[in-house]
């Protein structure tokens, strides 16, 4: 489930030449896709483990395997484009791919609504990218192959939502779809807030470092100089009172 796409396919096509302007940028974006797909595979695998419904379990498991395969395909394509420069980021991203535990956090209808919207966005994005990379056989084939899987994911999640609508849960499905859209917008807002907060806190702490710390630097250097070698001190006290202390 690629979660970074935004806007219509037309917008994607217009933006593609800027976003994917060099081999290094392409590799970097592919690495990002790989990490997202790896995280998504973890979520779908967990969903397959947790659900009691045999049909859903099969669908989720197949979906998880697809996502894991996509992660590897994206990563291999990125490495082929920029073998050295991206290697660290690649390994780091895959090691640190995050599961969001969506299946445990969301009711089933909402989970499927999330899958549907995310996969639809991903499918649109890959279709645009397939067009953008026309003439570059390997990348075109990559997006075509993965896009095909994404279409299956869109189809099964859409069918599930349609079935529930037909069973009289139309309101619940509509509500879930809007809720997921709302949550996504809220999370995007929070992400930007975090970035802003991060920059602000670094600036504040950096200023504090330069203004406040120098007073203490001299004290630390005069009264507490680092000394190598063995240190002896009493064993930590074995009392409950001492154990409750954080120092």
């Amino acid at each position, binding site marked *: 489930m690629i979660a970074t796409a935004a806007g219509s396919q037309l917008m994607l096509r217009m933006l593609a030449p800027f976003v994917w302007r060099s081999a290094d940028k392409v590799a970097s974006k592919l690495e990002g896709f790989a990490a997202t797909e790896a995280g998504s595979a973890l979520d779908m695998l967990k969903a397959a483990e947790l659900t009691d419904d045999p049909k859903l379990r099969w669908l989720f498991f197949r979906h998880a395997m697809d996502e894991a395969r996509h992660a590897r395909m994206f990563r291999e394509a990125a490495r082929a484009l920029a*073998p050295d420069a991206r*290697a*660290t980021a690649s390994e780091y991203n895959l090691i*640190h791919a995050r599961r969001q535990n969506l299946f445990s956090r969301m009711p089933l209808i909402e989970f499927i609504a999330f899958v549907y919207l995310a996969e639809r966005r991903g499918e649109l994005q890959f279709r645009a990218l397939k067009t953008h990379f026309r003439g570059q056989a390997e990348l075109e084939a990559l997006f075509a192959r993965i896009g095909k899987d994404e279409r299956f994911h869109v189809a099964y999640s859409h069918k599930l939502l349609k079935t529930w609508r037909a069973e009289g849960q139309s309101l619940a499905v509509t509500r879930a779809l809007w809720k997921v859209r709302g949550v996504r917008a809220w999370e995007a807002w929070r992400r930007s807030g975090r970035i802003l907060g991060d920059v602000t806190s670094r600036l504040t702490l*950096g200023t504090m470092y330069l203004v406040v710390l*120098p007073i203490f630097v001299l004290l630390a250097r005069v009264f507490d100089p680092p000394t190598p*070698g*063995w240190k002896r001190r009493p064993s930590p006290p074995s009392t409950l009172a001492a154990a409750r202390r954080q*120092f």
Partner: protein
Amino acid sequence: MIVLGISAFFHDAAAALLVDGVVVAAAQEERFTRLKHDAALPVNAARFCLEQAGVTIAQVDHVVFYEKPLRKFERILVTHLREFPRSLPQFSRALATWLGKRLWSKGELCAALGCTTEQLLFCEHHLSHAASAFFSSPFQSAAVITVDGVGEWATTSIYRGSSGPDGSKLELLEELHFPHSIGLLYSALTAYLGFEVNDGEYKVMGLSAYGEPRFLDRLEQLCAIGDDGALTLDEKFFCFQRHPTRSFTPALEALLGPARVPGAALHLPARDEEDRRFADIAASLQKLTERYLLALSHRAKALTFERNLALAGGVALNCVANRHLQTHGPFEQLFVQPAAGDAGGSLGAAQWATHVLHGLPRVAAMRHAFLGAAYAPTEIARFLTDCRVAYHAFDSRADLVDEVARLLSEQQVGGWFQGRFEWGPRALGARSIIADARDPKAQDRVNRKIKFRESFRPFAPAVLAEEAARWFDVSPTDQLAPFMCSVVPVRPETRERLPAITHVDGTARVQVVHAEDNPAFHALVDAFRRRTGVGVLLNTSMNLKDEPLCASPAEAYAVFARSELDFLVLENCLIERRPS
């Protein structure tokens, strides 16, 4: 008495639960979140431990965190003062992390685990390590050495542990303080060699066997090892104290040559001078580490006069150095707990509260590492049926192991999933990928097509206890052998028969399998021995490159589906790959 130990916020978060001194459950958080080396509060691991014991958090007497957060914060602040103004880039990042979360550990722990502040205790970092080594060992008294990157201030500590009718004691004798740390030096050179810190150290160890220690004299310029075993780093080569992402300075590159670009091709045996240089630096680092640990063990012997040594901390996972200590050190026996790194701190913190703080007697030494979650065969069968996976369920273990031994003897490679998963980083026959140790192509095949990892990394053997001395130079009383914590020489006369597990230097990181501790895996290796005359299997962890070890059947099947494993055994169910 019920005590829950917790380690978190740096790397390898974990939880361990003791009931009346018995380790009921222990697991790393990464097994549940699938995030390798996950440092987050181990909520899932703690929940698993409580469920395994059938208790609630309210019934727990103490929740013990494995370090003293405020003392660690003090070290961070003082280091920044000492490094002023060069520590500016690191300062805002470190402070943001601390002010955002770590400084409020008490509240975070209570909120996440649902415990009260009255239940919550804090144990020093190195004391947690020391407790995990000593109380898991079979020794009633021992010298205890802890060596890791850094805890609060300590980087290396020497304790004396003793247990008797009056209770147990861990007496701190000496410690070295930050930044003088062999663990940090090893990590800095791990980064220099192009591997990820806190993950790639064992790759450096594997790489070292391909090189010659011709850079040893240059590495000796990085640090001085005193006659008393004290290590002093020359700080001009390192910047982990002040830099957020780099751990070594240009001075190190001036001394050793340019650092390896992460992910760059590395061919071993060496194809060019660069490959040779990196392998030789790794070999030199390994030699330096061994020399240092030996000096340290002599210091510990001189301070304690003990016969046995318990070793803990991340550096204790260096099984080549452990072997060096076993064969050249002044102690008769050595014990290393299987999760010797930070994960093991959770176990040690709980053991310290139980045995030292409350004086409960020790129950038994750790004989196996199967402390994780298990999955019922019925649950597995249902999962496979739902996922439309064809499988064959065996009614008896004898039939299952016979069939698996047959597949292995035909040079097939498979996954072996049985019982509770392992505590610590090693697969010991519960979540293992197994192959025929006689197959010369097995190592390359498993590296390239199954685990997708570097070709130079060796594989470990699992050998029947009854057969161990026939194939390896291993003592029957070796305390490290059941946990794969040491390497041993493969007997020269048998090396040609075990090409898949014999490393380039003629050694192997052996696991000795005892029937009483590991019955299913023992039965399998024994079935293989009956069929082939060789009671040895290649045994590696069931995961793909850069992933944590599998925990659940779904994760095991995901490994099978994404790799070229020939078969997978999930408890009594055998899944074979159909020709595509």
